[in-house]
Protein backbone atom coordinates (compact mmCIF):
# COMPACT_ATOMS: atom_id res chain seq x y z
CA UNK A 1 0.00 0.00 0.00
CA UNK A 2 1.35 3.32 -1.08
CA UNK A 3 -0.35 5.57 1.48
CA UNK A 4 -0.54 3.75 4.81
CA UNK A 5 -0.58 6.10 7.82
CA UNK A 6 -1.57 9.03 5.63
CA UNK A 7 -4.59 11.22 6.29
CA UNK A 8 -6.55 12.94 3.56
CA UNK A 9 -9.52 15.26 3.33
CA UNK A 10 -11.50 15.03 0.08
CA UNK A 11 -13.79 17.99 -0.56
CA UNK A 12 -16.86 17.39 -2.74
CA UNK A 13 -17.78 13.77 -3.49
CA UNK A 14 -20.93 13.89 -5.62
CA UNK A 15 -19.20 12.90 -8.87
CA UNK A 16 -17.67 9.71 -10.23
CA UNK A 17 -14.17 11.18 -10.23
CA UNK A 18 -14.28 12.12 -6.54
CA UNK A 19 -15.74 8.71 -5.67
CA UNK A 20 -13.02 6.90 -7.60
CA UNK A 21 -10.41 9.05 -5.81
CA UNK A 22 -11.85 8.23 -2.36
CA UNK A 23 -11.94 4.53 -3.17
CA UNK A 24 -8.38 4.46 -4.49
CA UNK A 25 -6.91 6.50 -1.62
CA UNK A 26 -8.61 4.17 0.85
CA UNK A 27 -7.35 1.05 -0.96
CA UNK A 28 -3.85 2.47 -0.63
CA UNK A 29 -4.27 2.74 3.15
CA UNK A 30 -5.17 6.39 3.50
CA UNK A 31 -7.51 7.49 6.28
CA UNK A 32 -10.19 9.76 4.92
CA UNK A 33 -12.42 12.64 5.83
CA UNK A 34 -14.96 12.93 3.01
CA UNK A 35 -17.05 16.07 2.67
CA UNK A 36 -19.84 17.26 0.45
CA UNK A 37 -22.25 20.16 0.32
CA UNK A 38 -24.89 17.52 1.04
CA UNK A 39 -23.81 15.44 4.02
CA UNK A 40 -25.98 12.49 2.94
CA UNK A 41 -23.86 12.28 -0.23
CA UNK A 42 -20.70 12.04 1.87
CA UNK A 43 -22.44 9.41 4.02
CA UNK A 44 -23.10 7.26 0.94
CA UNK A 45 -19.43 7.41 -0.07
CA UNK A 46 -18.04 6.70 3.42
CA UNK A 47 -20.47 3.82 3.98
CA UNK A 48 -18.48 1.83 1.41
CA UNK A 49 -15.01 2.83 2.65
CA UNK A 50 -13.24 1.84 5.86
CA UNK A 51 -11.49 4.38 8.13
CA UNK A 52 -13.52 7.26 6.79
CA UNK A 53 -15.67 10.03 8.23
CA UNK A 54 -18.38 12.03 6.45
CA UNK A 55 -18.88 15.77 7.04
CA UNK A 56 -21.18 18.31 5.41
CA UNK A 57 -19.08 21.22 4.06
CA UNK A 58 -20.03 24.19 1.95
CA UNK A 59 -16.73 25.04 0.25
CA UNK A 60 -17.85 28.66 -0.02
CA UNK A 61 -17.49 28.85 3.77
CA UNK A 62 -14.00 29.19 5.24
CA UNK A 63 -15.42 28.19 8.62
CA UNK A 64 -16.76 24.86 7.28
CA UNK A 65 -13.44 24.11 5.61
CA UNK A 66 -11.40 24.91 8.72
CA UNK A 67 -13.65 22.63 10.75
CA UNK A 68 -13.18 19.75 8.32
CA UNK A 69 -9.39 20.17 8.45
CA UNK A 70 -9.47 20.41 12.25
CA UNK A 71 -11.55 17.23 12.43
CA UNK A 72 -8.84 15.39 10.49
CA UNK A 73 -6.08 16.78 12.69
CA UNK A 74 -7.94 15.95 15.90
CA UNK A 75 -8.77 12.46 14.79
CA UNK A 76 -5.49 11.49 13.15
CA UNK A 77 -3.01 14.09 14.57
CA UNK A 78 -2.06 15.41 11.16
CA UNK A 79 -3.16 16.10 7.63
CA UNK A 80 -1.07 14.84 4.72
CA UNK A 81 -3.28 15.36 1.72
CA UNK A 82 -6.15 17.62 0.72
CA UNK A 83 -8.00 16.98 -2.53
CA UNK A 84 -10.48 19.54 -3.78
CA UNK A 85 -13.03 17.87 -6.06
CA UNK A 86 -15.62 20.63 -5.62
CA UNK A 87 -16.66 21.71 -9.08
CA UNK A 88 -19.84 23.21 -10.40
CA UNK A 89 -20.58 24.19 -13.99
CA UNK A 90 -23.20 26.32 -15.67
CA UNK A 91 -23.94 25.80 -19.34
CA UNK A 92 -24.75 29.31 -20.53
CA UNK A 93 -23.41 31.98 -22.88
CA UNK A 94 -21.25 34.71 -21.29
CA UNK A 95 -23.57 37.45 -22.58
CA UNK A 96 -26.43 35.84 -20.63
CA UNK A 97 -24.61 35.17 -17.36
CA UNK A 98 -25.74 37.17 -14.33
CA UNK A 99 -23.26 38.60 -11.87
CA UNK A 100 -24.61 36.29 -9.19
CA UNK A 101 -24.11 33.24 -11.42
CA UNK A 102 -20.54 34.30 -12.15
CA UNK A 103 -19.79 34.74 -8.43
CA UNK A 104 -21.32 31.41 -7.50
CA UNK A 105 -19.23 29.47 -10.03
CA UNK A 106 -15.95 31.25 -9.31
CA UNK A 107 -16.36 31.12 -5.52
CA UNK A 108 -17.33 27.47 -5.48
CA UNK A 109 -14.55 26.35 -7.82
CA UNK A 110 -11.66 28.73 -7.16
CA UNK A 111 -12.03 30.54 -3.87
CA UNK A 112 -12.57 27.11 -2.29
CA UNK A 113 -9.04 26.24 -3.45
CA UNK A 114 -7.65 29.24 -1.55
CA UNK A 115 -9.65 28.44 1.61
CA UNK A 116 -8.63 24.79 1.56
CA UNK A 117 -4.93 25.48 0.97
CA UNK A 118 -4.86 28.12 3.69
CA UNK A 119 -6.62 25.85 6.18
CA UNK A 120 -4.30 22.90 5.56
CA UNK A 121 -0.98 24.72 5.15
CA UNK A 122 -0.20 25.48 8.78
CA UNK A 123 -0.30 21.84 9.85
CA UNK A 124 1.58 20.77 6.72
CA UNK A 125 4.31 23.36 7.31
CA UNK A 126 4.66 22.18 10.93
CA UNK A 127 5.04 18.59 9.71
CA UNK A 128 7.25 19.54 6.79
CA UNK A 129 5.10 17.28 4.61
CA UNK A 130 1.96 17.46 2.52
CA UNK A 131 0.24 17.55 -0.82
CA UNK A 132 -2.49 19.88 -2.02
CA UNK A 133 -4.32 18.66 -5.10
CA UNK A 134 -6.96 20.43 -7.14
CA UNK A 135 -9.30 18.62 -9.48
CA UNK A 136 -9.75 21.19 -12.24
CA UNK A 137 -10.62 20.59 -15.90
CA UNK A 138 -9.24 20.44 -19.41
CA UNK A 139 -11.49 23.41 -20.14
CA UNK A 140 -8.84 25.46 -18.28
CA UNK A 141 -6.75 25.31 -21.44
CA UNK A 142 -9.29 24.49 -24.14
CA UNK A 143 -11.88 27.20 -23.34
CA UNK A 144 -15.17 25.87 -24.74
CA UNK A 145 -18.20 27.96 -25.63
CA UNK A 146 -21.00 28.20 -23.05
CA UNK A 147 -18.67 27.39 -20.16
CA UNK A 148 -16.80 30.67 -19.80
CA UNK A 149 -17.16 31.10 -16.03
CA UNK A 150 -16.30 27.44 -15.55
CA UNK A 151 -13.17 27.60 -17.76
CA UNK A 152 -12.09 30.85 -16.10
CA UNK A 153 -12.48 29.38 -12.61
CA UNK A 154 -10.61 26.20 -13.55
CA UNK A 155 -7.60 27.99 -15.03
CA UNK A 156 -7.69 30.44 -12.11
CA UNK A 157 -7.38 27.47 -9.75
CA UNK A 158 -4.40 26.19 -11.73
CA UNK A 159 -2.76 29.64 -11.59
CA UNK A 160 -3.28 29.74 -7.85
CA UNK A 161 -1.84 26.24 -7.35
CA UNK A 162 1.18 26.97 -9.55
CA UNK A 163 2.10 30.01 -7.49
CA UNK A 164 1.42 28.22 -4.24
CA UNK A 165 3.77 25.41 -5.30
CA UNK A 166 6.59 27.98 -5.50
CA UNK A 167 5.82 29.27 -2.02
CA UNK A 168 5.92 25.92 -0.23
CA UNK A 169 8.66 24.11 -2.15
CA UNK A 170 11.04 24.37 0.78
CA UNK A 171 8.46 22.96 3.19
CA UNK A 172 8.29 19.63 1.36
CA UNK A 173 4.69 20.38 0.35
CA UNK A 174 3.65 19.51 -3.18
CA UNK A 175 0.89 21.29 -5.02
CA UNK A 176 -0.60 19.83 -8.20
CA UNK A 177 -3.73 19.80 -10.33
CA UNK A 178 -5.39 17.19 -12.49
CA UNK A 179 -7.53 18.16 -15.46
CA UNK A 180 -10.34 15.71 -16.20
CA UNK A 181 -11.52 15.74 -19.79
CA UNK A 182 -15.22 15.24 -19.44
CA UNK A 183 -17.72 17.36 -17.58
CA UNK A 184 -19.60 15.33 -15.01
CA UNK A 185 -23.35 15.57 -15.12
CA UNK A 186 -23.40 16.04 -11.34
CA UNK A 187 -21.47 19.33 -11.54
CA UNK A 188 -23.90 20.68 -14.14
CA UNK A 189 -26.84 19.63 -11.94
CA UNK A 190 -25.39 21.20 -8.79
CA UNK A 191 -24.32 24.33 -10.69
CA UNK A 192 -27.84 24.71 -12.04
CA UNK A 193 -29.32 24.10 -8.60
CA UNK A 194 -27.15 26.72 -6.89
CA UNK A 195 -27.95 29.34 -9.55
CA UNK A 196 -31.66 28.52 -10.06
CA UNK A 197 -31.18 27.21 -13.62
CA UNK A 198 -32.17 24.04 -15.42
CA UNK A 199 -29.26 21.70 -16.18
CA UNK A 200 -28.68 20.67 -19.83
CA UNK A 201 -29.66 17.17 -20.93
CA UNK A 202 -27.46 14.34 -19.80
CA UNK A 203 -25.13 13.44 -22.62
CA UNK A 204 -24.20 16.86 -23.98
CA UNK A 205 -21.03 16.97 -21.86
CA UNK A 206 -19.80 13.64 -23.13
CA UNK A 207 -19.22 15.25 -26.51
CA UNK A 208 -16.14 16.96 -25.12
CA UNK A 209 -14.10 13.83 -25.63
CA UNK A 210 -15.53 11.85 -28.51
CA UNK A 211 -12.36 9.88 -29.25
CA UNK A 212 -11.80 8.47 -25.79
CA UNK A 213 -13.72 5.99 -23.71
CA UNK A 214 -14.30 8.42 -20.85
CA UNK A 215 -16.02 5.76 -18.76
CA UNK A 216 -12.55 4.65 -17.62
CA UNK A 217 -11.36 8.14 -16.80
CA UNK A 218 -12.32 8.43 -13.11
CA UNK A 219 -10.25 5.35 -12.17
CA UNK A 220 -7.34 6.46 -14.34
CA UNK A 221 -7.32 9.89 -12.64
CA UNK A 222 -7.55 8.26 -9.21
CA UNK A 223 -4.51 6.11 -10.03
CA UNK A 224 -2.61 9.23 -11.10
CA UNK A 225 -3.48 10.97 -7.83
CA UNK A 226 -2.41 7.97 -5.76
CA UNK A 227 0.90 8.06 -7.62
CA UNK A 228 1.35 11.80 -7.08
CA UNK A 229 0.57 11.38 -3.37
CA UNK A 230 2.93 8.43 -2.97
CA UNK A 231 6.63 8.45 -2.20
CA UNK A 232 7.33 8.07 -5.92
CA UNK A 233 5.57 11.36 -6.65
CA UNK A 234 7.54 13.34 -4.11
CA UNK A 235 9.56 15.23 -6.69
CA UNK A 236 6.51 16.45 -8.61
CA UNK A 237 5.02 19.86 -7.88
CA UNK A 238 3.40 22.79 -9.63
CA UNK A 239 1.99 20.56 -12.39
CA UNK A 240 -1.41 20.31 -14.04
CA UNK A 241 -2.00 16.90 -15.64
CA UNK A 242 -4.56 15.72 -18.12
CA UNK A 243 -4.74 12.24 -19.58
CA UNK A 244 -4.89 13.01 -23.28
CA UNK A 245 -4.58 15.84 -25.73
CA UNK A 246 -7.40 17.00 -27.99
CA UNK A 247 -6.53 20.52 -28.94
CA UNK A 248 -9.11 20.80 -31.70
CA UNK A 249 -11.64 23.57 -31.69
CA UNK A 250 -14.54 21.54 -32.93
CA UNK A 251 -14.42 19.24 -29.95
CA UNK A 252 -14.67 22.28 -27.74
CA UNK A 253 -17.60 23.93 -29.36
CA UNK A 254 -20.63 22.12 -28.05
CA UNK A 255 -22.99 24.09 -30.27
CA UNK A 256 -21.27 22.72 -33.36
CA UNK A 257 -20.89 19.23 -31.94
CA UNK A 258 -24.62 18.98 -31.36
CA UNK A 259 -25.10 19.17 -35.12
CA UNK A 260 -22.89 16.16 -35.89
Amino acid at each position, binding site marked *: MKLSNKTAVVFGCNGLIAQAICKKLSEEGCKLIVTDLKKEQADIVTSEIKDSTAIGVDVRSEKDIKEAVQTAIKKYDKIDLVVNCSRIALFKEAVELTENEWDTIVDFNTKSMYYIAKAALKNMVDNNYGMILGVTSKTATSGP*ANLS*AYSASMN*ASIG*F*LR*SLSCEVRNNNIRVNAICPGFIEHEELVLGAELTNNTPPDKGIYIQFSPLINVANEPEALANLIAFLASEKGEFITGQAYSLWDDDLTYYRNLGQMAEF
Partner: protein
Amino acid sequence: MRLENKTVIVTGAGRGIGRAIALSLAREGANVVISDINLKEAKQVAKEIEELGRKSLAVKTDVTSKNEVDDLIKKTIEKFSFLDIMVSNAGVSSMEYVIDMPEEKWDFNMDVNLKGTFLVTQAAAQQMIKQQKGKIICTASMAGKGGVATQAHYNASKHGVIAYVKSLAQELAPYGITVNSICPGSIKTSMQDREVQWSAQIRGAGATPENIREEMANFTPLGRIGLPEDVAKVVVFLASDDSAFMTGQAINVTGGQINTM
Protein backbone atom coordinates in the same frame (compact mmCIF):
# COMPACT_ATOMS: atom_id res chain seq x y z
CA MET B 1 -3.47 55.08 -40.16
CA ARG B 2 -4.97 51.73 -39.30
CA LEU B 3 -7.85 52.77 -37.03
CA GLU B 4 -9.30 55.91 -38.58
CA ASN B 5 -12.59 56.95 -36.96
CA LYS B 6 -12.89 53.74 -34.94
CA THR B 7 -14.41 54.07 -31.47
CA VAL B 8 -12.43 52.42 -28.71
CA ILE B 9 -12.90 52.12 -24.96
CA VAL B 10 -9.83 51.48 -22.82
CA THR B 11 -10.44 50.68 -19.14
CA GLY B 12 -7.71 51.50 -16.65
CA ALA B 13 -6.46 54.07 -19.15
CA GLY B 14 -5.49 56.73 -16.60
CA ARG B 15 -1.90 55.55 -16.40
CA GLY B 16 0.62 52.85 -17.23
CA ILE B 17 -0.11 50.30 -19.94
CA GLY B 18 -3.71 51.50 -20.38
CA ARG B 19 -2.61 55.07 -21.02
CA ALA B 20 0.00 53.95 -23.57
CA ILE B 21 -2.63 51.79 -25.32
CA ALA B 22 -5.07 54.70 -25.49
CA LEU B 23 -2.48 57.07 -26.93
CA SER B 24 -1.19 54.52 -29.45
CA LEU B 25 -4.72 53.77 -30.68
CA ALA B 26 -5.39 57.50 -31.02
CA ARG B 27 -2.20 57.95 -33.03
CA GLU B 28 -3.64 55.38 -35.47
CA GLY B 29 -6.76 57.53 -35.85
CA ALA B 30 -9.13 56.11 -33.23
CA ASN B 31 -11.43 58.11 -30.98
CA VAL B 32 -10.78 56.82 -27.48
CA VAL B 33 -13.00 56.71 -24.40
CA ILE B 34 -10.75 56.88 -21.35
CA SER B 35 -12.21 54.86 -18.50
CA ASP B 36 -10.54 54.79 -15.11
CA ILE B 37 -11.48 54.61 -11.45
CA ASN B 38 -9.49 57.83 -11.04
CA LEU B 39 -11.44 60.45 -13.02
CA LYS B 40 -8.75 63.11 -12.63
CA GLU B 41 -6.15 60.93 -14.37
CA ALA B 42 -8.71 59.87 -16.99
CA LYS B 43 -9.44 63.50 -17.83
CA GLN B 44 -5.73 64.22 -18.20
CA VAL B 45 -5.30 61.37 -20.71
CA ALA B 46 -8.51 62.39 -22.54
CA LYS B 47 -6.95 65.83 -22.96
CA GLU B 48 -3.81 64.27 -24.45
CA ILE B 49 -6.01 62.31 -26.90
CA GLU B 50 -7.76 65.50 -27.97
CA GLU B 51 -4.40 67.19 -28.46
CA LEU B 52 -3.68 64.45 -31.02
CA GLY B 53 -6.75 65.66 -32.94
CA ARG B 54 -9.08 62.80 -31.92
CA LYS B 55 -12.32 62.82 -29.98
CA SER B 56 -12.28 61.55 -26.44
CA LEU B 57 -14.40 61.13 -23.36
CA ALA B 58 -13.32 60.56 -19.76
CA VAL B 59 -15.55 58.24 -17.70
CA LYS B 60 -15.10 57.22 -14.08
CA THR B 61 -15.54 53.43 -13.92
CA ASP B 62 -15.09 50.96 -11.12
CA VAL B 63 -14.96 47.78 -13.22
CA THR B 64 -16.28 45.70 -10.32
CA SER B 65 -19.58 47.61 -10.48
CA LYS B 66 -21.99 46.36 -13.14
CA ASN B 67 -23.88 49.65 -12.99
CA GLU B 68 -20.78 51.71 -13.68
CA VAL B 69 -19.69 49.37 -16.49
CA ASP B 70 -23.13 49.56 -18.13
CA ASP B 71 -22.99 53.33 -17.73
CA LEU B 72 -19.62 53.39 -19.52
CA ILE B 73 -21.08 51.62 -22.58
CA LYS B 74 -24.18 53.83 -22.51
CA LYS B 75 -22.15 57.05 -22.45
CA THR B 76 -19.91 55.77 -25.26
CA ILE B 77 -22.86 54.87 -27.49
CA GLU B 78 -24.58 58.19 -26.74
CA LYS B 79 -21.53 60.07 -27.94
CA PHE B 80 -20.14 57.81 -30.70
CA SER B 81 -23.13 55.51 -31.52
CA PHE B 82 -20.81 52.55 -32.21
CA LEU B 83 -18.23 50.52 -30.30
CA ASP B 84 -15.53 49.06 -32.57
CA ILE B 85 -12.96 47.96 -30.01
CA MET B 86 -13.07 47.27 -26.29
CA VAL B 87 -9.77 47.09 -24.43
CA SER B 88 -10.43 45.60 -20.99
CA ASN B 89 -7.22 46.61 -19.30
CA ALA B 90 -7.99 47.71 -15.72
CA GLY B 91 -6.07 45.58 -13.24
CA VAL B 92 -4.51 45.52 -9.78
CA SER B 93 -1.91 43.48 -7.93
CA SER B 94 -0.63 42.90 -4.44
CA MET B 95 1.93 40.60 -2.84
CA GLU B 96 1.27 38.16 -0.06
CA TYR B 97 2.12 34.56 0.83
CA VAL B 98 -0.99 32.35 0.75
CA ILE B 99 -0.47 31.17 4.31
CA ASP B 100 -0.95 34.75 5.61
CA MET B 101 -3.18 36.12 2.85
CA PRO B 102 -6.22 38.00 4.16
CA GLU B 103 -9.44 37.25 2.30
CA GLU B 104 -9.75 40.92 1.26
CA LYS B 105 -6.52 40.65 -0.75
CA TRP B 106 -7.82 37.58 -2.56
CA ASP B 107 -11.12 39.32 -3.32
CA PHE B 108 -9.45 42.55 -4.44
CA ASN B 109 -7.33 40.81 -7.08
CA MET B 110 -10.03 38.40 -8.25
CA ASP B 111 -12.77 41.05 -8.34
CA VAL B 112 -10.92 43.69 -10.32
CA ASN B 113 -8.87 41.45 -12.62
CA LEU B 114 -11.21 38.55 -13.34
CA LYS B 115 -14.75 39.62 -12.52
CA GLY B 116 -14.01 43.09 -13.89
CA THR B 117 -12.96 41.45 -17.18
CA PHE B 118 -16.22 39.49 -17.24
CA LEU B 119 -18.42 42.55 -16.56
CA VAL B 120 -16.61 44.80 -19.06
CA THR B 121 -16.44 42.25 -21.90
CA GLN B 122 -20.01 41.10 -21.32
CA ALA B 123 -21.35 44.64 -21.62
CA ALA B 124 -19.20 45.23 -24.72
CA ALA B 125 -20.29 41.92 -26.26
CA GLN B 126 -23.96 42.79 -25.81
CA GLN B 127 -23.40 45.98 -27.81
CA MET B 128 -21.18 44.30 -30.42
CA ILE B 129 -23.70 41.50 -31.06
CA LYS B 130 -26.21 44.19 -32.05
CA GLN B 131 -23.58 45.58 -34.42
CA GLN B 132 -22.50 42.11 -35.68
CA LYS B 133 -18.95 43.45 -35.47
CA GLY B 134 -16.30 44.20 -32.90
CA LYS B 135 -12.94 43.40 -31.35
CA ILE B 136 -12.29 42.71 -27.70
CA ILE B 137 -8.78 42.76 -26.23
CA CYS B 138 -8.05 41.89 -22.61
CA THR B 139 -4.87 42.63 -20.69
CA ALA B 140 -3.91 39.37 -18.99
CA SER B 141 -0.30 38.85 -17.89
CA MET B 142 2.61 36.47 -18.14
CA ALA B 143 1.34 35.59 -14.64
CA GLY B 144 -1.54 33.94 -16.51
CA LYS B 145 0.85 31.28 -17.78
CA GLY B 146 3.22 30.49 -14.93
CA GLY B 147 3.49 30.58 -11.16
CA VAL B 148 5.42 32.82 -8.80
CA ALA B 149 5.54 33.04 -5.01
CA THR B 150 3.59 35.85 -3.26
CA GLN B 151 1.20 36.38 -6.16
CA ALA B 152 -1.04 33.31 -6.06
CA HIS B 153 -4.19 35.45 -6.05
CA TYR B 154 -2.94 37.62 -8.91
CA ASN B 155 -1.86 34.53 -10.88
CA ALA B 156 -5.25 32.92 -10.30
CA SER B 157 -7.01 36.01 -11.65
CA LYS B 158 -4.81 36.25 -14.76
CA HIS B 159 -5.00 32.51 -15.52
CA GLY B 160 -8.75 33.00 -15.27
CA VAL B 161 -8.70 35.84 -17.80
CA ILE B 162 -6.84 33.72 -20.36
CA ALA B 163 -9.29 30.80 -20.10
CA TYR B 164 -12.29 33.14 -20.08
CA VAL B 165 -11.06 34.84 -23.27
CA LYS B 166 -10.78 31.46 -25.02
CA SER B 167 -14.37 30.57 -24.12
CA LEU B 168 -15.71 33.99 -25.01
CA ALA B 169 -13.93 33.86 -28.37
CA GLN B 170 -15.73 30.61 -29.20
CA GLU B 171 -19.08 32.14 -28.28
CA LEU B 172 -18.67 35.42 -30.16
CA ALA B 173 -17.03 34.07 -33.32
CA PRO B 174 -20.42 33.51 -35.06
CA TYR B 175 -21.13 37.25 -34.71
CA GLY B 176 -17.86 38.30 -36.32
CA ILE B 177 -16.43 39.44 -33.00
CA THR B 178 -12.87 38.50 -32.10
CA VAL B 179 -11.54 38.21 -28.55
CA ASN B 180 -7.84 38.07 -27.69
CA SER B 181 -5.63 38.77 -24.70
CA ILE B 182 -2.13 40.08 -24.26
CA CYS B 183 0.31 38.88 -21.64
CA PRO B 184 2.78 41.62 -20.68
CA GLY B 185 5.99 40.58 -18.91
CA SER B 186 8.02 42.96 -16.72
CA ILE B 187 6.83 46.41 -17.76
CA LYS B 188 7.84 49.75 -16.26
CA THR B 189 4.63 51.02 -14.66
CA SER B 190 3.48 52.28 -11.27
CA MET B 191 2.22 48.74 -10.59
CA GLN B 192 5.76 47.49 -11.09
CA ASP B 193 7.15 50.30 -8.90
CA ARG B 194 4.97 49.05 -6.06
CA GLU B 195 5.84 45.42 -6.74
CA VAL B 196 9.61 45.93 -6.67
CA GLN B 197 9.23 47.77 -3.37
CA TRP B 198 7.13 44.98 -1.89
CA SER B 199 9.59 42.40 -3.22
CA ALA B 200 12.49 44.21 -1.59
CA GLN B 201 10.60 44.35 1.70
CA ILE B 202 9.58 40.69 1.57
CA ARG B 203 13.08 39.55 0.68
CA GLY B 204 14.81 41.75 3.28
CA ALA B 205 18.57 41.23 3.76
CA GLY B 206 19.42 44.57 2.21
CA ALA B 207 17.55 43.97 -1.07
CA THR B 208 16.58 47.23 -2.79
CA PRO B 209 13.93 47.99 -5.41
CA GLU B 210 16.81 48.74 -7.81
CA ASN B 211 18.30 45.26 -7.24
CA ILE B 212 14.95 43.65 -7.91
CA ARG B 213 14.43 45.62 -11.10
CA GLU B 214 17.91 44.74 -12.31
CA GLU B 215 17.13 41.09 -11.62
CA MET B 216 13.92 41.37 -13.63
CA ALA B 217 15.85 42.78 -16.58
CA ASN B 218 18.40 39.96 -16.25
CA PHE B 219 15.62 37.37 -16.28
CA THR B 220 14.38 38.85 -19.56
CA PRO B 221 16.18 37.40 -22.61
CA LEU B 222 15.97 40.72 -24.44
CA GLY B 223 17.82 42.22 -21.47
CA ARG B 224 15.60 45.12 -20.47
CA ILE B 225 12.39 45.99 -18.64
CA GLY B 226 9.58 46.54 -21.15
CA LEU B 227 7.88 49.88 -21.70
CA PRO B 228 4.10 50.39 -21.78
CA GLU B 229 4.53 51.33 -25.46
CA ASP B 230 5.97 47.85 -26.20
CA VAL B 231 2.63 46.41 -25.11
CA ALA B 232 0.55 49.13 -26.79
CA LYS B 233 2.06 48.32 -30.21
CA VAL B 234 0.79 44.75 -29.99
CA VAL B 235 -2.64 45.99 -28.90
CA VAL B 236 -2.75 48.25 -31.98
CA PHE B 237 -2.09 45.16 -34.11
CA LEU B 238 -4.86 43.21 -32.34
CA ALA B 239 -7.22 46.17 -32.72
CA SER B 240 -6.52 46.49 -36.45
CA ASP B 241 -7.68 44.42 -39.43
CA ASP B 242 -4.18 42.97 -39.60
CA SER B 243 -5.29 40.49 -36.93
CA ALA B 244 -8.66 39.71 -38.55
CA PHE B 245 -8.12 35.93 -38.52
CA MET B 246 -6.97 35.68 -34.87
CA THR B 247 -9.29 34.95 -31.97
CA GLY B 248 -9.04 33.30 -28.54
CA GLN B 249 -5.29 33.87 -28.33
CA ALA B 250 -3.10 35.01 -25.44
CA ILE B 251 -0.14 36.89 -26.92
CA ASN B 252 3.08 37.19 -24.89
CA VAL B 253 4.80 40.58 -24.84
CA THR B 254 7.54 39.61 -22.43
CA GLY B 255 10.90 40.14 -24.08
CA GLY B 256 11.17 36.35 -24.30
CA GLN B 257 10.66 35.78 -20.61
CA ILE B 258 8.10 33.02 -20.92
CA ASN B 259 8.01 30.31 -23.57
CA THR B 260 4.51 28.94 -23.06
CA MET B 261 1.96 29.53 -25.81
